[in-house]
C-alpha cells in the first residue's frame, strides 16, 4: 500500500505542470509493420504531454471487424475515446448522435481554413467537427520494382495501352506482371483507378458518387470491366485471399513488376529498407494524373464523460498539429490532412502526393474513393464489391457485370 502511494506521488511529481493528464482509449486496426510504426508517433507525442494511451487494436485490413467491436462497445454505453474510422461510417455515427463536439478545439486552431473541403465533408456532421483527420491516402497509385523496369528498359506508362504493353513486357521476362491480392476491397481499389482513367473525373462522380443509372449501365462502364479483365490476365493464379502487404512483398522481392494499391503500400517498401526512386517507383495509375481518389483515416471522437473530455481534446489537438501530421505521414506513406504542412521531411513520392493533393483540391478533382468508403455508403459499396469481385474472378462477362452492377446498386440504395 505504502509502495503504491509512493509510486503515485512520484508519478504526479514527474508529470509536473502538465494539466491535461489523463487516458485516451483508441480503437484502430493499424497492426501491420508500417502502420504500427506510424501510430507510435502519435503515442509518443501524447505521452510527452502526459496523456497515456490505452491501445485497442482489432486486426483486419479494411476495419470490418473493428467496426463490429466498436458497435458492441457503443451500444453497451462503453464508447472508446476515439476510433479510427473511414468516410461514411463517420457520418452514420454522427447521425446516431454518438459523436463528441470538437468545434471549440477546431475554432481555436483554425481547422476550417487548412483542411481540404472534400475532407471536411467527412469530418463534420451538421456543422460540427466530430472527427480529426489524420491523413489523406490516395488510391490511384502504382508501385513498381525499379530493378525490373531498368532491366527491361521500361518507364512509367502514361495511358492504359502503355500500361498493358509494360505488363506484357514484364510477363515475357518471366516475372509476375501484377501483384494483387484477391480480396474484394483490393479489386475495388483497382476498379477506382480504372473508372477514373477510362471515364474521367465527371464520369467517376456521376457513376460512383451520384450513382446515376445511365452512367453505371453505359458503354463506358463496359469498357471499364473489359479493362479489369485485361488486368486480371496479368495476375498470377494463386492470388485469391492474399493480403495486400504480401502482394507488396512480391514487388519488394522482385517476384512481381508492380502493384496497384493506395499509398499505404509505401510503408511496406520503406519498412523493407527500400528507397523511393532507387529501389521502387511510384507513379499515378496511367491516365489518372491530375486527379486524386482519396480516403482519409480519421479519429472519430465519441461522447465521453467530463472526466475524459480534457484528454480527448488533447488527443484531437495533437492529431491536428502540423508537426505530428508531418511526422506521422512520413512514416505511414500518406500525406497530411491539412494543406499548410511543410513537405521538407517527405520523400519523393510523398512530395508528389502532397503536390497532387493541393492541386486536386484547387481544381476540384479530389474524389472520394469508392473502394474505401468515401464515394458511396457501406451498403452500396459492398453491393459494388460483389459485382467487381465476381467479375474479376471470371464469373461474369463484362456485359453481364454492367447490368448486375446497375441492379445491385439499385437494390442496395
Amino acid at each position, binding site marked *: 500500500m505504502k509502495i503504491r502511494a509512493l509510486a503515485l506521488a512520484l508519478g504526479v511529481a514527474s508529470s509536473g505542470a502538465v494539466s491535461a493528464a489523463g487516458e485516451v482509449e483508441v480503437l484502430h486496426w493499424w497492426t501491420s509493420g508500417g502502420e504500427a510504426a506510424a501510430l507510435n508517433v502519435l503515442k509518443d507525442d501524447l505521452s510527452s504531454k502526459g496523456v497515456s494511451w490505452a491501445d485497442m487494436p482489432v486486426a483486419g485490413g479494411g476495419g470490418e471487424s473493428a467496426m463490429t467491436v466498436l458497435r458492441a462497445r457503443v451500444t453497451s454505453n462503453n464508447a472508446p475515446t476515439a476510433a479510427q474510422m473511414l468516410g461514411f461510417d463517420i457520418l452514420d455515427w454522427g447521425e446516431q448522435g454518438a459523436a463528441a463536439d470538437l468545434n471549440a478545439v477546431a475554432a481555436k486552431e483554425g481547422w476550417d481554413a487548412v483542411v481540404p473541403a472534400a475532407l471536411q465533408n467527412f469530418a463534420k456532421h451538421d456543422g460540427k467537427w466530430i472527427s480529426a483527420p489524420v491523413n489523406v491516402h490516395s488510391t490511384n497509385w502504382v508501385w513498381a520494382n525499379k530493378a525490373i523496369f531498368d532491366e527491361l528498359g521500361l518507364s512509367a506508362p502514361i495511358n492504359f495501352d502503355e500500361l498493358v504493353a509494360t505488363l506484357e513486357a514484364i510477363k515475357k521476362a518471366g516475372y509476375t506482371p501484377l501483384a494483387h491480392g484477391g480480396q474484394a476491397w483490393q479489386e475495388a481499389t483497382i476498379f477506382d483507378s480504372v473508372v477514373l482513367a477510362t471515364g474521367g473525373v465527371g464520369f467517376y462522380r456521376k457513376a460512383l458518387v451520384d450513382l446515376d443509372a445511365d452512367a453505371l449501365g453505359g458503354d463506358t462502364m463496359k469498357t471499364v470491366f473489359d479493362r479489369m479483365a485485361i488486368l486480371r490476365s496479368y495476375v498470377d493464379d494463386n492470388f*485469391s*485471399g492474399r493480403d495486400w502487404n504480401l502482394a507488396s512483398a512480391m514487388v519488394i522481392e522482385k517476384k512481381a513488376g508492380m502493384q496497384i494499391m493506395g499509398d499505404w503500400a509505401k510503408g511496406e517498401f520503406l519498412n523493407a529498407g527500400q528507397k523511393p526512386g532507387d529501389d521502387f517507383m511510384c507513379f499515378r495509375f496511367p491516365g489518372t494524373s491530375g486527379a486524386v481518389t482519396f480516403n482519409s483515416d480519421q479519429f472519430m471522437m465519441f461522447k465521453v464523460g467530463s472526466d475524459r473530455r480534457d484528454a480527448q481534446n488533447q488527443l484531437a489537438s495533437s492529431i491536428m498539429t502540423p508537426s505530428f501530421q508531418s511526422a506521422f505521414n512520413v512514416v505511414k506513406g500518406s500525406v497530411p490532412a491539412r494543406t499548410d504542412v511543410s513537405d521538407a521531411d517527405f520523400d519523393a513520392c510523398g512530395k508528389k502526393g502532397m503536390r497532387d493533393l493541393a492541386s486536386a483540391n484547387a481544381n476540384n478533382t479530389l474524389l472520394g474513393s469508392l473502394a474505401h468508403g468515401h464515394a458511396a455508403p*457501406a451498403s452500396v459499396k459492398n453491393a459494388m464489391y460483389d459485382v467487381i469481385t465476381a467479375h474479376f474472378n471470371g464469373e461474369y462477362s463484362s456485359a453481364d457485370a454492367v447490368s448486375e452492377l446497375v441492379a445491385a446498386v439499385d437494390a442496395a440504395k
Partner: protein
Amino acid sequence: MSHRWWQRQLPKLVLSPSFALVLFFVYGFIVYTGYLSFTDSRMFPSNELVGFANYEKLFALRHWKISITNLGIFGGLYIGICLVLGLMLAIFLDQKIRGEGVLRPIYLYPMALSFIVTGTAWKWFLDPGIGVEQIVQSWGYTDFEFRWIKDRTMAIYCIVIAGVWQTSGFVMAMFLAGLRGIDGEIMKAARIDGASSVQLYRRIIIPMLRPIFLSAFVVLAHMAIKSYDLVIALTNGGPGRATELPATFMYSYTFTRNQMGIGATSAMVMLMTIAAIIVPYLYSELKGSKKS
C-alpha cells in the same frame, strides 16, 4: 403442510432463473430478430415497419441465391458423405479387431478441434503454393495440379472435404454405439439361418440403425446450416463470393454492410429451415417416449 409445499415448489424455484434467462436471451431475441426483419433497420435497429419488403429483397438478391445453392451442395454432400463414411468406419471397427481402443479416439479426435483450426489447417493443405500440390510436385510429378480452393466452381467442395474430415469420426461414434446396442442373439440367429455378412448388414443391422441415422442426420443438418467459422477460416467466402453460405451472408449484411433488416430476414429464413428439420424430429421423439 408447508414442508410438502416446499418440496413440490423447490424444483421449479431452482430451475426458474435459468428458465427466465433462456426465455429472454434465446427466445426473446429470436422474437426481436423476427421483428427487425420487418423493419428498415440499417446500421442500428429501427422501428419503421416495412412489411415483407425485406423478404422480397432477400430472395431477389443474387448473393443470397449463391448462398442457398452453396448450402444445398455443401449440406447434401456433407451429410451424405459423413453418414456413409461414419457407418463404414463403425462397421469396420465393430469387427472385434485388435487395437480398437487406439483407433477409435484417432477417428474421433478431429471433433475436439474447433472449425477455425480445421479450416486454417486445410487452407494450408489445399493451397497450391504451400500445400498438397507443391509437395507432390516436389516429388517429381511436376504436372500434378490440385487447385480447387482457388477455383470458384470447385472451392465449395474444399469446404465439404474439411467438414467431412472434422465430423465423420463423430458420426462413426454414434453408429458404433448403435451397433453395440444390437442384441448379439439376433446376429447369431441370422448366422444360423445362413445369412452372409453382406446380407446380415444390409437386411438386418442397417435397418435396425434407423434411429441412429435420424439422430445423425439432425445433428449434421443443423451443423451444415449454421456453419460459419469453417468457411471464414478456409476461404473467407472467396474466391470472389463463390463460397458464401447463409450464415456468412447473415453476418456480413447485419454487421458490415449496414443492412440489418436484410440480415435479420436471412437469420429468420435460416431459423425456419432448421425448425423444419428439428421440429418433426422432436415431435416424433416425444411421441415415442410417451408410448414407452
